[in-house]
């Protein structure tokens, strides 16, 4: 634009200048005395064409610079005055000082789930809206956050998160409401950040969401972090909005990232231990015990229950979970592993027993192009843009997980003809991250069962998953 203006200015000047203007004289003929040469703006000395061009050029440069400075000032003012933003992290409104903020986000997962060779117990091949979760979160008075997330997945409405949190210090935060107790490593990952379409088998043994109060904080610049809370207490894998007894669970987690400050290939190494402890008691109508699912979300283990006190297995005392866990993300590679033990006192009729169910998993991933794996999913370095011949990030993955039901469970507390004794699942697949907001997941998972059928073992579950996910 500046050059167009300059050209027009020059054309105008040349059209009106006399033919024998001093500008056409060679520079060598001009005096070297700047005072005698005549300064631009000096009314007593006529300007040469070069001087006029220079003056015009300077005026244009000044105008350009003023526009530039105005834009910088406007940008700074906009930053200082807050306002509305829409970006890859969602849509937000904030006050000028940042003390008040509201963010609207969410994610939608459209899955397909196709079972192969399911002759013994046919399952339904289906498309499903696995998760439909609008999220409303924000900050009030600078240090108080809130989050509300509901899920409309599968045509049901479930309040997943509703909590308030005070950030008083990096080492001391207080959260109250409904949220994930700090136990399972994979469970603590957002549903939008999962490596596989479905979480692995240990997630069966840890709480999903519960109501309670928790303190948490990061110590030594994040080298260590802790969470400690008191919750109503839910069954393994459970989510609840009210308690069924007066006993409470305490949940705690210690996690270390020793190289987070030092950097290097082990910067994203994390390991820790978590657990819960409490007393739970059930009734024949509300036994207070879980059922466990296969990766295809089919219930494969449940306790005996016929609604009578004599024949229904119920929770009857201590429930302790211990979950050591670790991950490492280095270069394009990611590893995640956890072990879960859930020990629970149960009673059926006059027989009581402590049962210890155990599970573990190990998952590995390799971002083969265009991104960096993290605990919070892959951040693509380039986005999918066919016009630019960029294709986002691609990741391959493999996982093995196993769940062992305590042998003492059978036959008194669970029916071996319908409840499995163990399951082991091997999964592999491919993820395509088109950008931060859109991804496709493709998994194949084969699960072998021990027991769980009238004539012996339940047939293997072979399943193809796919997921189209949009997150904002």
């Amino acid at each position, binding site marked *: 634009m500046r050059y167009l203006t300059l050209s027009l200015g020059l054309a105008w000047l040349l059209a009106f200048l006399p033919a024998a203007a001093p500008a056409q004289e060679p520079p060598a003929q001009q005096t070297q005395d700047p005072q005698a040469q005549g300064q631009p703006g*000096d009314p007593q000395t006529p300007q040469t064409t070069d001087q006029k061009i220079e003056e015009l050029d*300077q005026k244009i440069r*000044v105008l350009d610079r003023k526009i530039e400075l105005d834009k910088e000032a406007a940008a700074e003012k906009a930053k200082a005055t807050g306002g509305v933003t829409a970006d890859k992290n969602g849509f937000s409104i904030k006050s000028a000082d940042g003390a008040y903020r509201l963010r609207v986000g969410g994610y939608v997962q459209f899955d397909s789930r196709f079972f192969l060779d399911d002759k013994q117990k046919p399952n339904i091949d289906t498309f499903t809206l696995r998760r439909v979760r609008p999220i409303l979160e924000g900050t009030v008075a600078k240090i108080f956050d809130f989050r509300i997330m509901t899920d409309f997945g599968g045509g049901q409405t479930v309040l997943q998160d509703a909590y308030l949190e005070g950030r008083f210090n990096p080492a001391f935060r207080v959260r109250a409401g409904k949220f994930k107790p700090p136990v399972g490593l994979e469970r603590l990952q957002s549903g939008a950040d999962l490596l596989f379409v479905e979480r692995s088998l240990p997630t069966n043994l840890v709480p999903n969401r519960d109501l309670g109060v928790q303190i948490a904080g990061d110590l030594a610049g994040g080298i260590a972090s802790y969470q400690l809370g*008191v919750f109503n207490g839910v069954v393994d894998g459970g989510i609840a909005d009210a308690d069924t007894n007066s006993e409470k669970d305490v949940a705690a987690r210690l996690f270390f990232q020793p190289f987070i400050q030092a950097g290097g290939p082990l910067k994203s190494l994390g390991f820790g231990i978590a*657990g819960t402890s409490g007393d739970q008691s059930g009734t024949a109508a509300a036994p207070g015990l879980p059922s466990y699912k296969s990766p295809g979300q089919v219930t494969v283990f449940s306790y005996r229950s016929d609604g009578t006190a004599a024949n229904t297995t119920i929770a009857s005392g201590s429930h302790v979970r211990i979950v050591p866990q670790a991950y490492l993300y280095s270069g394009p590679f990611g590893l995640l592993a956890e072990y879960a033990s859930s020990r629970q006192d149960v009673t059926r009729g006059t027989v009581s027993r402590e049962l210890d169910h155990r599970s573990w998993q190990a998952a590995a991933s390799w971002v083969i192009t265009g991104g960096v794996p993290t605990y919070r999913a892959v951040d693509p370095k380039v986005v999918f843009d066919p016009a630019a011949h960029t294709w986002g990030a691609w990741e391959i993955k493999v996982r093995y997980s196993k769940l062992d039901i305590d042998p003492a469970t059978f036959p008194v507390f669970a029916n071996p003809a319908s409840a499995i004794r163990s399951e082991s699942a091997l999964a592999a697949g491919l993820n395509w991250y088109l950008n931060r907001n859109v991804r496709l997941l493709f998994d194949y998972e084969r699960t072998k069962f021990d027991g769980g059928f009238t004539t012996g073992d339940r047939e293997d579950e072979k399943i193809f998953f796919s997921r189209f996910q949009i997150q904002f």
Partner: protein
Amino acid sequence: MRKLFQLPLLLLALACGLSPAPAAAQVKLLNVSYDPTRELYQDCNGAFAKYWKAKAGQDVSVQQSHGGSGKQARSVIDGLEADVVTLALAYDVDAVANSGLIAKNWQTRLPNNSAPYTSTIVFLVRKGNPKQIKDWDDLVRPGIAVISPNPKTSGGARWNYLAAWGWAQKKYGTEAKAKDFVSRLYKNVPILDTGARGSTVTFVQRGIGDVLIAWENEALLAVRELGEKGAFQVVAPSSSILAEPPVAVVDKVANKHKTAAVAKAYLEYLYTPEGQEIAAKHFYRPRLAAVAQKYAQQFPQITLFTIDVFGGWTKAQKTHFDDGGVFDQIYGAGK
């Protein structure tokens, strides 16, 4: 409820076995500084990190924030959590102290009025000095475009203004004539950037103006490292002002962050021979005699007067730069 307190104890015991050997946590400092000190503190921060690691065995990371000095002081007052401020002039540190964040006696806590290095104000002109600018009176000639930032937001600009005023008052003898001189000078200023670095960009990168009134360090940096070699040259006026950019620990913030000790050490490091060498390499005039002598050749000989000519910073600020002050009168009238 009997289990309520068993788990934390169990986890604690397990964690003791699992936890890594205790490592000294990294300390983070925020240095809020004025516009042209970016390169100086980049070097200082790296050198101090090594120094502090060797001395205290602690990792330290110093983050920097730069902008017009007055604006930076305002940001700290408004909540920017600086552990230290290294600003262009004492008045701006006083403003932070008046807000209660810094002890009122800050200037006596470190040597040389808490100014570990000095500078002055010079001219930067284009190759060959085509407009033959040699001294302050050349800046008021018709047709000379002078680049200088806004004294309302920039500490450097206030030094520029006072350097011009001090020269004129000495040459012409009265305040009225000095005011007339400075008024004519600002009529030749087509753009007021908010900070000294912005003015350097205007002059060097945008090619605007015939002369940049600049910090000596900024001018020498431009000659050595900006633009084509030989594209600019420094002109030393016959007299200028001795600029003493001060430093201070922001006590309330440093106490809150538990960084007071390392913040103090960071500022004291600026007075060490190593710190003074770094300052000199970035064209700041060192206080330490040995280092000053070593680098004497790179600094032009200029007769320097101090802020005391104006009765100190508080009086100078009130007279010239507060709303309705002399600068508002002359610049408002001139534009």
